[in-house]
């Protein structure tokens, strides 16, 4: 390609990308900027692009009308627990499937994998009956967390990731009479740290944003997660756009901050185990 047409291509690319980036970000910008403008007077959401007067009144209304602090605490608890269990159990199982030989390993792995195609709607109703009617766990953290303790998708990612780690160190440790769990803890975990970090971040964000299951198993306002609480707030206060935008910002901001501080992991992370399948 001649350098002239190369330059033209780059110019076009930049122009298109800047416009598209603008279109992508502007809704979130509106949300954020709108949450600092007191629009209680009008039922229509029309934030000024650069507000003249900043106001935290929408936030005051949101935290006053809703049990928002409790929702955030609930989300932090649930997402943290689910992240820890997923990282631990998925890495353990991923290691076993990738590096240990045992009868049935292939069959079990594929049995797990094929069920990923089954939509959540199929298992939803029995799961609901099981949790709410049989175990009587409605409105508890346990009900929200239990089905999410370790996902098959994460086991798969960890298996892909673990198989890229060198086997020689494992053999060396085995000769040194390390127990298998000792090998996992002292050899595998330190080597796998980058992969585990990616898994942890993605699990935390996914669980923070999870909506459907927490919606089903929580009844009282105190047990809602921030996403479920936010949805209920939208239905209850549908005319107070300012407070709604404040709530939406509260629901999204922790993840946006997490994203910008751990950008590197996000932007490389999703290619782990995804492309070659």
């Amino acid at each position, binding site marked *: 390609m001649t350098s002239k047409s190369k330059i033209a291509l780059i110019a076009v690319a930049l122009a298109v990308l800047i416009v598209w980036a603008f279109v992508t970000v502007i809704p979130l910008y509106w949300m954020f900027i709108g949450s600092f403008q007191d629009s209680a007077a009008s039922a229509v959401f029309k934030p000024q692009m650069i507000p003249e007067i900043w106001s935290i009144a929408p936030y005051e209304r949101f935290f006053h009308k809703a049990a928002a602090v409790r929702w955030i605490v609930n989300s932090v608890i649930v997402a943290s627990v689910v992240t820890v269990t997923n990282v631990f159990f998925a890495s353990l199982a991923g290691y*076993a499937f990738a590096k240990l030989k045992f009868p049935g390993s292939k069959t079990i792995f594929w049995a797990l994998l094929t069920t990923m*195609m089954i939509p959540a709607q199929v*298992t939803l109703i*029995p799961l609901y009956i*099981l949790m709410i009617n049989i175990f009587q766990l409605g409105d508890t953290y346990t009900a929200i967390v239990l089905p999410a303790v370790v996902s098959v998708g994460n086991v798969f990612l960890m298996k892909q990731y673990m198989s890229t780690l060198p086997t020689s160190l494992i053999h060396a440790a085995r000769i040194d009479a390390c127990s298998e769990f000792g090998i996992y803890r002292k050899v595998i975990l330190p080597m796998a740290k980058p992969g585990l970090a990616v898994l942890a971040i993605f699990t935390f964000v996914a669980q923070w944003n999870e909506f459907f299951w927490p919606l089903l198993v929580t009844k009282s306002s105190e047990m809602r997660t921030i996403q479920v609480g936010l949805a209920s707030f939208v239905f209850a206060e549908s005319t107070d756009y300012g407070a709604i935008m404040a709530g*939406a910002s509260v629901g999204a901001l922790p*993840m*946006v901050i997490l994203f910008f501080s751990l950008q590197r992991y996000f932007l490389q992370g999703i*290619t782990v185990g995804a492309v070659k*399948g």
Partner: protein
Amino acid sequence: MRSTTSHAAGSGAARFRQFLRNYGWAYAFIAVPVLLFLVFTLYPVGWAFVISFQKYGILKSTWVGFDNYTYMFKDDVFWKSMRNTVIFTIGTVPVNILISFGLAFLIFQLKQRAQTFFKAVLYLPTVASGVTLSIVWIAIFDPTPSGMLNRLLIQLGLDPVIWLGQKSTALFSLMLMSWLGSHGSGIILYLAAMGGIPKSLYEAADIDHASGWKKFSRITWPLLKPTTLYLLVTGVITSFQVFISVYLMTQGGPDFATTTIAYLIYQTAFNFNQFGLASAQAFVLAAVIVIVSVLQFKFFSTDIEY
């Protein structure tokens, strides 16, 4: 240790102990995922299948044979929701793949720093929750003339639109929202795959004076097919289960114009307490997803030639 040396009599137990010593750890390592899989996936699937032939009640369920299935196939709302789901899927998944590909292609032309910047910015909506995005888009689609999108239309000299409130535009509005937001992971996967194409292929094509289009259609696109297939299959599966935006923005309305199959299942089960019928609907959804996924693999793997 000495005691495990085999005796003819205790060989069964000894062999079991030997088996445990060899493989016990491995089974312990996979125990939790496997247990969860049995309790929270396999068992519920079987149970849901049974429920789909029942009129389910908490205290007493009655066997109704194929009644749920026959009712469902005669139900207009079921077919409407199927139609909506298919339209939404066809209207969003290929379009979003093309957009992701196009954006990735453009980003790929830039220097490393600019690449990182655009990747980060375009990934942002993927981090925000479905609930947050739905809330923002409710405001954007405000039906009054002073709504965000309507003001833009009026500035362009067009009439304001009741975006989510009328049958003709409601589903389109949800698709519009999808086009303008969900490209983060697609872009990153495509960029990773583009980076993996050996430069020598393009250099060879340059020697042959191949046109830009030829290089694209003979090298870039075919070599990115695994990524496209991955995005297609996962995209269709996700799109067939679209729920949050429907639940928050339209509640399936107006007049079932945006009722998707996932939303119908939710309503059937948790608004109307018809667990049997909802399970039958869920199985049809599962069947459709499996068939479509298999077809995509078949269709896409037959014509790869490089």
